[in-house]
């Protein structure tokens, strides 16, 4: 019988809108979590797919030896797309000129991700090439080689025993990477033409790559099969997320931000449920008292209300799932249209996560209010003041705090992040309780001063000190989370802006002869081109550490970047060449910070400064003696500092920097980077004509890709922000509405006694204004604390104080809470007094 009563209550209450706030809170929590996690998951896989273009594939297997045919067949059996790419250095001849080039021979299907772009003349207008590669006897050649060999389209290029007709200018290869140490321009030929060049001989320095593309499952299943057969010395299996490139970093940060913002959304939604749960139970006090008076047993009441809550929760979860899916589908459609790409479907996990969030928060936040509800004495039918026992209040705090922490932890699976947020919340809570106490103490002198709206508001604030401090807790939580997401978003975007300012260098020049440095700098100045410092580069090898000879573990660009895709670096990573690009300098380069030891200043003794990650990998520390061999000369130098390098900065960066006196006598070439707007690209030819040996590396395409990814992430962040905002406003609304009901009786009395509507609505507005401003102030403080932890611990950014928010927080709090309070009050004051009295009765 009890289930009938329960279902009946639920049906009618839903129809009559009495459960709207509770249902809306659960629906909101499920909707927010589902749409956020679906969206982030789909966007992330979309971004990954997009970024895979930088590898020209989802995964790349590289090797120094030809890759077994059997391995390719296995991949094809798993329906993976594959393509071969073989890269090596060779000399190319044309018109009696010769140059060292990187030959790239690729098979049909290349590139598996992204596309090539070509032009019909050097620095001419480029077009995207789809499903097309150089034909038999054809070669596509990078612009720089046209300069070096005085080539024209249609000329013949000799490589090894073959002759190729140059048919197009190669302007963009998705997998070109960023390394500034690739001093030879690329020549693209078809894989089938490789053998007849006769250049591949046993012992040749050749890099064999197989590119793979397919779904994550296909790739994982293949790798599972492949992994046991790989040899760490010769094989290397990579995805775009491996590495330390600006792109990988941006992606990782974006991922963390999305996760964090979603977490905040979860907390906000949970707060909404907590506020609503309290109301839900209070609203039923009378019902339970009547039930008990009519002879209902405790067990019956328990069952009726637990079932009632369960049904309500389940229905709300269902609605939330539907709504979340619809919102996410709409946003995905919009974002996909912006990106011009399909976003892959997500798995079941977001649905499970969302349902669990709704369920856990509904159950845990209702636990204590429900216990209290069931304990309501029947005597309440005669004495409406009775609200039962308050002894288990601690249980409420423990359950609520535990639930929020558990949700954070389950959602992020990162204890540091969860703890940082939780700590911020805890500080806010303690502060609020202190403020609440302060009000209680101040309230002793307060009476009911109905003369002016302000005085009435102040009196009201003090009289309801206890209730107000609890309300402020939810106001502050909501405001703090909103500020946090906003501040973090600004930080993140600003950080990316810093990384990619409009005048960021878009060209690298390498191989500048010492005699040309001055002349080149003058030419830059004459044309008003902004360039970075010229850095000398001396090729050298590290031969020993503290007297112990170095073998394979020493790597050149050990930190790696997209340059990994290229022959040189990949070889060096495996300790094949072990040749390092060394430089010298008097001052610490920009975007470098010393984390151990000291920069040399004027000390002429031989010294070297090492990049942090290299130091870590090679287990080097201050004072270690490194032996270098440069052109047959061997010398020993102590490590005097370790640097952190911002690899995202588009300037020449080095693993090893020496003081000037140590290296300046060795022969060097120079490198630099500069910014030349796209529309002035045609000037390049004239600019570098007098320096045929200088190589030019175009970073525009790479930067464009990076910008595109950042733009996409920004759209995503804006969406997350909107969702969190909606969640925040709902919490505020729920809280204002709940507290309005508490104020109702007093308002009715004042109204009956003839207080003008204006006075009442003003005093309520002022009261909420003050509440909002205080909450905003506390929220800002808590936000700063959380942000400081997040910036320093999670995002690896410099911590900053956000002065603007100290104004925005209280102001926004006052305006939003004040407005909501006024709206809620207006509705109440509009009713006539008789209606109000009846409602109260």
């Amino acid at each position, binding site marked *: *019988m009890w289930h009938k009563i329960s279902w009946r*209550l639920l049906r009618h*209450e839903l129809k009559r809108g009495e459960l709207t706030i509770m249902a809306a809170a659960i629906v909101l929590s499920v909707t927010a979590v589902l749409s956020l996690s679906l969206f982030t998951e789909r966007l992330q896989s979309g971004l990954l797919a997009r970024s895979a273009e930088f590898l020209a594939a989802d995964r790349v297997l590289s090797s120094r030896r030809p890759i077994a045919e059997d391995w390719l067949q296995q991949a094809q059996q798993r329906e993976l797309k594959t393509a071969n790419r073989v890269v090596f250095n060779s000399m190319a001849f044309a018109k009696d000129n010769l140059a060292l080039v990187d030959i790239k021979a690729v098979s049909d299907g290349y590139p598996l991700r992204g596309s090539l772009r070509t032009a019909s003349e050097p620095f001419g207008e480029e077009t995207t090439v789809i499903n097309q590669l150089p034909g038999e006897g054809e070669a596509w050649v990078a612009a720089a080689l046209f300069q070096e060999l005085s080539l024209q389209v249609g000329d013949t290029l000799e490589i090894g025993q073959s002759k190729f007709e140059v048919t197009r200018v190669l302007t963009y290869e998705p997998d070109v990477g960023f390394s500034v140490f690739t001093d030879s321009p690329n020549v693209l030929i078809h894989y089938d033409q490789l053998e007849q060049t006769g250049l591949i001989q046993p012992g040749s320095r050749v890099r064999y790559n197989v590119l793979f593309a397919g779904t994550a499952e296909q790739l994982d299943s293949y790798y599972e099969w492949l992994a046991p057969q790989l040899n760490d010395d010769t094989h290397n299996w990579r995805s775009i997320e491996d590495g330390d490139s600006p792109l990988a970093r941006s992606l990782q940060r974006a991922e963390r931000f999305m996760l964090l913002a979603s977490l905040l959304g979860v907390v906000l939604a949970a707060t909404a449920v907590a506020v609503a749960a309290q109301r839900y139970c209070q609203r039923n006090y009378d019902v339970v008292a009547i039930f008990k*008076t*009519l002879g209902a047993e*405790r067990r019956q009441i328990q069952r009726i209300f637990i079932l009632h809550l369960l049904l309500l929760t389940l229905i709300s979860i269902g609605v939330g799932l539907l709504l979340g899916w619809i919102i996410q589908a709409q946003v995905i459609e919009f974002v996909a249209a912006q990106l011009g790409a399909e976003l892959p479907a997500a798995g079941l996990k977001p649905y499970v996560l969302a349902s669990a969030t709704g369920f856990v928060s509904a159950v845990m936040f209702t636990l204590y209010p429900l216990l209290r509800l069931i304990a309501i004495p029947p005597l309440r039918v005669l004495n409406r003041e009775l609200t039962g026992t308050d002894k288990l209040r601690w249980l409420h705090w423990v359950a609520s705090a535990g639930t929020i922490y558990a949700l954070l932890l389950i959602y992020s699976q990162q204890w540091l992040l969860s703890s940082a947020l939780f700590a911020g919340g805890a500080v806010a809570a303690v502060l609020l309780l202190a403020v609440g106490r302060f009000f209680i103490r101040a309230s002793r002198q307060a009476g009911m001063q109905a003369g002016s709206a302000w005085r009435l508001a102040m009196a009201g604030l003090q009289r309801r000190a206890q209730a107000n401090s609890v309300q402020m807790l939810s106001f502050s939580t909501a405001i703090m989370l909103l500020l946090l997401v906003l501040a973090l978003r600004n930080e993140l975007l600003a950080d990316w802006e810093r990384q990619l300012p409009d005048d960021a260098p878009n060209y690298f020049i390498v191989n500048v002869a010492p005699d040309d440095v001055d002349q080149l700098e003058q030419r830059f100045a004459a044309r008003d081109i902004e360039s970075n410092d010229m850095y000398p580069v001396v090729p050298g090898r590290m031969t020993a550490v503290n007297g112990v000879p170095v073998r394979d573990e020493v790597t050149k660009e050990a930190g790696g970047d997209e340059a990994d895709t290229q022959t040189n670096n990949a070889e060096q990573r495996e300790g094949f060449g072990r040749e390092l690009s060394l430089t010298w300098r008097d001052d610490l380069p920009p975007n470098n910070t010393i984390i151990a030891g000291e920069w040399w200043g004027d000390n002429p003794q031989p010294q070297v400064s090492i990049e942090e990650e290299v130091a870590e990998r090679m287990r080097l520390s201050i004072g270690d003696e490194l032996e270098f061999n440069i052109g047959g000369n061997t010398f020993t130098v102590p490590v005097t500092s370790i640097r952190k390098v911002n690899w995202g900065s588009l300037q020449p960066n080095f693993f090893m920097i020496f003081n000037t006196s140590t290296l300046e006598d060795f022969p060097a070439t120079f490198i630099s980077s500069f910014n030349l707007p796209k529309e002035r690209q045609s000037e390049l030819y004239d600019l570098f004509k007098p320096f045929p040996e200088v190589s030019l590396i175009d970073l525009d395409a790479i930067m464009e890709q990076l910008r595109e990814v950042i733009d996409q992430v920004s759209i995503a962040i804006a969406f997350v922000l909107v969702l969190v905002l909606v969640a925040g406003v709902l919490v505020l609304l729920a809280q204002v509405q709940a507290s309005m009901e508490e104020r109702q009786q007093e308002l009715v009395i004042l109204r009956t006694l003839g207080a003008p509507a204006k006075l009442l609505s003003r005093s309520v507005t002022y009261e909420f204004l003050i509440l909002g401003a205080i909450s905003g102030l506390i929220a800002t403080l808590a936000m700063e604390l959380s942000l400081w932890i997040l910036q320093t611990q999670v995002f690896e950014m410099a911590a900053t104080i956000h002065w603007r928010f100290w104004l925005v927080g209280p102001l926004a709090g006052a305006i939003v809470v004040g407005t909501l309070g006024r709206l809620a009050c207006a509705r109440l004051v509009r009713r006539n007094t008789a209606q109000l009295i009846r409602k109260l009765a």
Partner: protein
Amino acid sequence: MLIQTTQLEKKVTTQDGILHILQPIDLSIEAGQTVAIVGASGSGKSTLLSLLAGLDLASSGDVSIDNVNLGDLDEEQRAKVRAEKIGFIFQSFLLIPSLTALENVMLPAELAGHKNAEQQARELLTKVGLGERLKHYPNQLSGGEQQRVAIARAFIGTPKILFADEPTGNLDATTGHKVEDLLFEMNQESGTTLVMVTHDAELAKRCQRILKMDAGRLTEVSNNVA
């Protein structure tokens, strides 16, 4: 004896010391009697009612219903006694706002596990003149109609005792009289014992016995039990 109290007392501790809400009361009410308890506001009428109905516990003394001492029962057992033997009518009706008239009336019977709750409720509502308004919610009914629903609810389990707390206190005079008529008519038909708290002298006169409460002391003003 259906209701019996011996030295029933209620005290509360306040900031200013102990407040005696009810001075020791000895009262016996037999089955079928109609009893009015009159007195000024705050004299302790409602407190006595709550003790008689087992809604609250006495500070000292005993209340027994049908020879069962309520003081010996826990909250659950007292609820059981109420479910089986007691009906209520309140000044503020106390209907459940989210249930229809019919469902409100069915509620006590359902809680007691009666099978034909709906049938009984329909008959009772028809009897109180609301046969056409079964599906209405309390807020769609007038005050008099709501109280008639409450009367129907009070009678559904054929209780032995009906407690009424100012049953016409919230109604205008005309409606109040109609509700009174209905209440006494149904009470007579079912032979239920009626214990009514009221400050309305006219209403009190319709009862066989009138008890007066004054500052926690109860005295019998008139007794017309045949």
